[in-house]
């Protein structure tokens, strides 16, 4: 290892580049300043948080999870409980503990509580699930999602069952969302270069060898599962504050699959893939929406039929995956200066002949 720079020194530019990309979106929002545009940028930031949350577990462990949106639901309801006006809570959510019923916190505390609550829930669920691997683990995570959604859809006195929970303070400024997306990227990066993150990645690529080298795979997975659960909770809380309404059915299969596809299209095994997948797919979706509304080209108005956007985004994803099966980033991280590639898509061996 002598003479080889530390992993931090080699990769620190990745989070910087990603945060610069997010900052560019933030600046665009400031420059345009219109309500719907800002809301679009807010939505992108929330999805960045969610997909980065997925990446922390899925990307590093290689286990696909269909259950993470359940933690998003937990986070969304937690911040709703804490930040709504006591009067509304007392009439609609009578089953909450008195201390929650009588108080109202600023939304920043709601976000923090959402992270802790969802992280704790992920820890408890993960304690059991992380002993499984492969498809069994994936299906078990899906079962967790189903359990959470069923409980929240039926626990009338605490979640309002399937009725909308309203009265959540709405935050329409873009800054907090940007900061949270940036924080999620930093946490994900810090985890991935930590001892635990590296051990987990080693176990992903070669489980037997990693276990033989002393990696406690269930434990490392649990660490990643807990952190990613917390980030998903943050995403849910941000969603609640961006729209002002939560219902359990928002956090089910639709959101699960759109976030998973953003991760896969971007490149499942790299943090850059998670962020770029969201940004690029969101931009394509937005362009298609504008085309649905009609654009003027040289005086002629041209509009796609309504609903084409959903079909087109599916087609775009198929095309991307045909040509880039490992995602847009080919599972590599963005670094500066850019690394040269060998024809197989792997970083070229250093000039002195030592293997990387």
């Amino acid at each position, binding site marked *: 290892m002598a003479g080889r720079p530390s992993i931090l020194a080699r990769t620190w530019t990745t989070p910087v580049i990603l945060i610069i990309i997010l900052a560019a979106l933030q600046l665009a929002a400031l420059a345009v300043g*219109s309500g*719907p545009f800002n809301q679009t940028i807010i939505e992108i930031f929330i999805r960045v948080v969610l997909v980065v949350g997925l990446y922390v577990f899925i990307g590093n462990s290689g286990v696909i999870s269909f259950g993470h949106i359940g933690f998003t639901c937990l986070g969304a309801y937690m911040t709703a409980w804490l930040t709504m006006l006591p009067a509304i809570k007392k009439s609609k959510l009578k089953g909450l503990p008195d201390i929650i019923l009588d108080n109202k916190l*600023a939304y*920043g505390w709601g976000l923090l509580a959402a992270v802790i609550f969802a992280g704790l829930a992920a820890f408890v669920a993960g304690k059991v699930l992380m002993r499984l691997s492969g498809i069994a683990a994936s299906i078990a995570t899906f079962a967790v999602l189903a359990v959470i959604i069923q409980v929240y859809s039926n626990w009338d006195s605490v979640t309002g069952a399937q009725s909308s929970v*309203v009265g959540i303070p709405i935050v329409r400024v873009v800054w907090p969302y940007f*900061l949270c997306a940036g*924080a999620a990227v*930093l946490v994900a990066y810090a985890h991935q270069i930590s001892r635990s993150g590296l051990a987990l990645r080693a176990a992903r690529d070669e489980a037997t060898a990693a276990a033989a080298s002393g990696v406690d795979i269930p434990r490392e997975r649990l660490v990643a599962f807990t952190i990613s659960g917390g980030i998903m909770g943050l995403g849910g809380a941000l969603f609640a504050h961006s*729209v*002002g309404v939560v219902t359990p059915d928002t956090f089910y299969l639709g959101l699960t699959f759109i976030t998973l596809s953003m991760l896969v299209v971007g490149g499942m095994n790299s943090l850059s893939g998670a962020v770029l997948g969201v940004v690029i797919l969101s931009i394509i979706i937005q362009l298609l929406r504008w085309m649905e509304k009609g654009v003027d080209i040289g005086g002629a108005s041209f509009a796609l039929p309504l609903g084409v956007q959903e079909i087109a985004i599916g087609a775009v994803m198929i095309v991307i995956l045909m040509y880039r099966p490992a995602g847009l980033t080919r599972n590599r991280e963005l670094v500066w200066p850019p690394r040269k590639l060998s024809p197989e898509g792997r970083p070229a061996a250093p000039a002195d002949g030592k293997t990387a």
Partner: protein
Amino acid sequence: MKSFLQLGLGAALGALMLAAPAAMAAGDKIVVGFATAQSGFMQAYDKPAEDAARIRIDEINKAGGLLGKQIEIVAADTKTDRAEGAKAGLEVIDKGADLVVVSCDYDFGAPAALAAEAAGKVSFFLCAESVKAGIQGVGPHSFSASVLAAVQGATMAEWAYNKKNARTFYRLLDTWTEYNKGICDGFDWQLPKLKDARLVGEDTFKNDDASIAAQITRIKSLPQEPDAIMLCTMMPGGVSAVKQIRAAGIKSMILNGSGMSGSYWLSATPDLSNFFVPDQGSVHGDDPNPKVNEFNAMYKAATGSDPSSQYVYPGYVMIDVWAKAVERAKSTDADAVVAELEKMKDEPTLFGPRTFTAELHHQNKGRYLITAVENGKARVVDEWTISEPIPVDYLASK
């Protein structure tokens, strides 16, 4: 993580204070913004009511406009999605909407209505029938153009008691939606007020239950067939429930909410009789008010088809009452318009009187036509207004 969040909180509060007020609307026109579903399943509910609203807007524009200004329409698609709904609301506000019209359903309309409320604009739900669609679930500038679901249940119970001599009632609730529960809530409130009327049994089912045989068995095992079954359900499962009840040989009259109105589904139950629904206006061409039949013709001319159900009408009522309030306030300022709307007491409209108060921006009393289905044909047989309004406290506690 924690310190980062606190940093975020500080920055967010700072940014909140700096947030600039929304852009001002242009002065020479009045803008109505539709933040409704143009795609997705809610489109089936939103589009007909929206078409009716556009008919009223055209009428006003042809008659010289509102406060001497033409009404302009802007629209944004919610795609039947809550997050998109919030964006659609912001978009029409950005385009200068003085009135923000939102989806028929409370759950799907609320994000856009909340956006309007935050911007200090008047919002109207096209046809939501939950008490939350208004002050209780959005805020003091929000209204609904329809009548509460509870009024439908209460109307049917009181009418059947007085006009059909019904004394024994059976309550069958489809727990699928808030709307269904609302109908039965109104029924529950009304029944104890009817002397000698009794509930002989109650049961629940789910809209997508393939069979309600168990529920039917319980009705059949009653010592005597009930006079009336209060069926709180809606499409699509309601049709199957009605079919099964009749197929089992139960002859009791069946009372419903407006969710089962319209004639488009009657071909599925060709010999249905003794079946009653409340309607705000008749889509069958036999409304006692000739102006409603004229409206139906206008609607057909504008859209190419007859109204399929009574849920077309609230869209027309909405623009009608809002425009009157704007005329009286001589301004589109939200607070002034809300004040005028709240002064409306039994304000006549094509589809029954409308009352708004500072407590309730919805109808807790309302005139309903009673439509009967006999031998598979629907026609208006009566009209009924409940003798007293359903108390707001009762509604809010549900």
